[in-house]
C-alpha cells in the first residue's frame, strides 16, 4: 500500500492542456468546450466508439485519449458500452462488408442528437483499403457523418480537437 501511495505522490498530475492549434476557430471552440458540454449535454458527453473495420491503430489513439496526459474525462467526455446512452458515435475504419449491418444497427439504437464522427483516413475516405467487395469505404457511405478527423491514425490531440469541433457545430 505504501508503495502505491508513494507512486501516486511521486508522479503527481501529468495531464496537459490541449495544445493550441493554428486555427483560431477551433481554439475558440476549445475554450467553449466545457461550457458547451455543460450546456448541451448537462456536463457530460457520452461517446460510443465503433470499430467498423479499422486496422486497430485508430483504437490505440482513442485509448490514448483516456491516458493521464490527455485525460479526456476532465472535459466531461465519457465512453459508454451501449449506444443507447451515447450522444456521439466515434467510428473508425473503412466500413467492412461484414460490419455494415452492425454499424447501421448501432446508429439506429443511438438516440438523438446522433452526432457521428468519422475517424482516420479510412473513416474519412476509405484509406488504403478503398472500396471493394469487402470494404464499403468511408463511413458516410453507410451512415450520415457530422465531422471527419483525418490522419493515419489521427493523434489523440487531433481526436480531441475533432470532438470539440463536433460539439461546437
Amino acid at each position, binding site marked *: 500500500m505504501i*508503495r*502505491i501511495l508513494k*507512486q*501516486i505522490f511521486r*508522479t503527481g498530475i*501529468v495531464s496537459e492542456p490541449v495544445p493550441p492549434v493554428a486555427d483560431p476557430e477551433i481554439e475558440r471552440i476549445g475554450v467553449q468546450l466545457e461550457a458547451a458540454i455543460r450546456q448541451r449535454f448537462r456536463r457530460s458527453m457520452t461517446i460510443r*466508439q*465503433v*470499430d*467498423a*473495420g*479499422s*486496422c*486497430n*491503430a*485508430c*483504437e*490505440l*489513439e*482513442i*485509448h*490514448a485519449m*483516456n*491516458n*493521464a*496526459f490527455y485525460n479526456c474525462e476532465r472535459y466531461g467526455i465519457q*465512453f459508454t*458500452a*451501449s*449506444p443507447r446512452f451515447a450522444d456521439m458515435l466515434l467510428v473508425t*475504419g*473503412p466500413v*467492412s*462488408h*461484414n*460490419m455494415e449491418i*452492425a454499424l447501421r444497427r*448501432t446508429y439506429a439504437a443511438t438516440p438523438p442528437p446522433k452526432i457521428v464522427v468519422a475517424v482516420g483516413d479510412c473513416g474519412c475516405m476509405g*484509406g*488504403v*483499403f*478503398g*472500396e*471493394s*467487395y*469487402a*470494404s*464499403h469505404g468511408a463511413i458516410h457511405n453507410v451512415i450520415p457523418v457530422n465531422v471527419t478527423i483525418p490522419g*493515419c*491514425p489521427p*493523434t489523440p490531440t487531433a481526436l480531441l480537437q475533432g470532438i470539440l469541433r463536433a460539439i461546437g457545430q
Partner: protein
Amino acid sequence: MIRLKNLVMNVLGPDAREDDNIAPSTVMSLVVPRKRFAEATRALKKEYALLAAEWAADETPFGRGYAVFACFRREQEYLVIKTEVPATDPTFPSLTKKFAAAFRFERQIESLMGLTPVGNPDPRPWIKHEDWPADAWPLRKSFDARKRLPRVAGEYAWIRAEGDGIYEIPVGPVHAGIIEPGHFRFQAMGEAVVNLEERLGYVHKGIEKRFESLAWEEGARLAARVSGDTTVAHSLAYARAVEAMTGTIIPDRAHWLRALFLERERIANHLGDLGAICNDVAFAILLYHFHRLKESFVRTNMKLFGHRFLMDRVVPGGVTVDIDAAGIQTILEELDPLTREFERLVKIYDDNSSLEDRVRETGILRPETARDLGMVGIVARASGLNLDCRIHHPFPPYDRIAVNVPVLISGDAHARAWIRVEEVRESIRIIRELLKDMPGGRISAPLAPVLPDRSGFAAVEGWRGEIITWVQSGPKGEINRCMVRDPSSLNWLGLEQCIHGNIVPDFPLCNKSFNQSYSGNDL
C-alpha cells in the same frame, strides 16, 4: 537431426521435388503430388514438426491450376510443401486430422479460394459470413473485387451444448469498450464456461485481394496496416519476403534500425497490455501508470522518427528514417528512467495479493494443448513452448545479437503477463546493444527487379509472435499473391481452449492476456 526436407523425401522418394520458383535463400520448399500431400505431412508430424500456416494461390495466370501450401516449423527450420490442384477438380486432402490448427486455415481456403479440403470435419465458412453468396471466392483471379457483394439469406451453425441448466451468452460483434469487433458465444452452467466459440471475420477488408491490385512499393503501405498495433513487424515481414524474392541485399544499418523499431514496438505494446490486464482485474492505478510510460515512449517515436507507432518506416529495401547521435542520446536517456519506473510498477504488481489471486490459475492453456494447436509468441512461451524466430530463424541483426526469451510453463494469465514483463526488460537490453555499435552507411538499397513467377518467404517475430508473409510474382512481375499469417490466426484457437471451466466474468481478463488481433486475423 534429419532435415525436414529429407524426412519427406525419404517417404515420397522421387515423387517429391524441390520447388525452383522460390528463392532458395528464404525457405526450403518441396512440391508433392496431391494424392500424397497428407502422407508427406504425416512424416513431419511424427518428427514433431508444427504446422505454421496453410494457404492457397491461384496460379491460372501461369497456365496452371491452383496450389495449396502448408508451412511447417521445427526448431531452426521451416519447410513449405506445395501441391498443385487442377482447376477442374478443386479439392485437396485435409491435414486437420494430424494438425488441429489446419481446420481453420482450410475453412478459410475453402471460403475465399473455393478449394475443398477433403476430410475436414468442419465445413462451415470462415471469414466469409453466411450472407455472402456461396460461390463468391474473392481470392480467385476470376473474381471481380470491385463489385459489391449481394447479401443472401443464411444462418451460421453454432456449436451447441445441451443439458439442464446450460444457457448461452452471445457477445458482440460490437463489444463494450474500445476494442475491435468479433463475436463470442459462451455456453455456461451457472458461472462456469462449458464452451466458447469464436466467430470472427467482421473486420475482413479484403487485404490479401487488395495486394494483387497494387505495385510492390504500394503494398508496403497496406502491409503496414494489416494490424496497426504491429505495423513495424508486418512491414518488416513484407519487406523481407519481397527482398528474398528479388534477392535484394540491404545495408547493415537498415537491419539495425529495423530491429530498433521492432523492439520499440514490442515495449510499447507490452506496456499497454500490462496496464490493460491490471485494469481487467480492477487495479486501475497500474493501468494509468503503465499507459503513462507507454505514452512517453511513443512520443519519443514521434519526436525522433515522425510517427507514434512508426508506421511506414520499414519498407522493401530498408528503412525511411535514420537516427543521428543526438537521437541515440535521446533514447539512451529515456531508457534509464523507463527502467526505474517500470521496475517500480512491476514491484507493485508482484506485491499485490488481490491481483495475484485473479491472474494466477486463470485461463490456463496447458503445454500439450498449446503444442497441439501450434501456438506462437507470448502465448506459446507462457505455455512452455520455446519458440521465437529471433532465435530459431534469426534474421539480421539477431544473428549477431543474442536474445534471451523467457519461457514459463504455468500457461495462466499471470504467465502471459509475466512473459511481457521479462520481454520489456530484454528489449530494453537489446536496444542498448543495438545502439552501442550501430553500423554506419546507407539506410536503404534499391529493390532488385522482380522476375515473373517467383516467390519469397519471411518469418519475423513481432510483439505477439511469429508473422509469416509469403509473396508470389505474376507473369509480368506484378503481385500475384501476398499471403499474410498474423500470430492471431493460430492463437485465437488457444483462447477458446483456455477458457473451459473458468467463470464467465474472468473472460475479459483471459482475452486481454492473449490480446490477439482481429484485423490481423480477418485480413
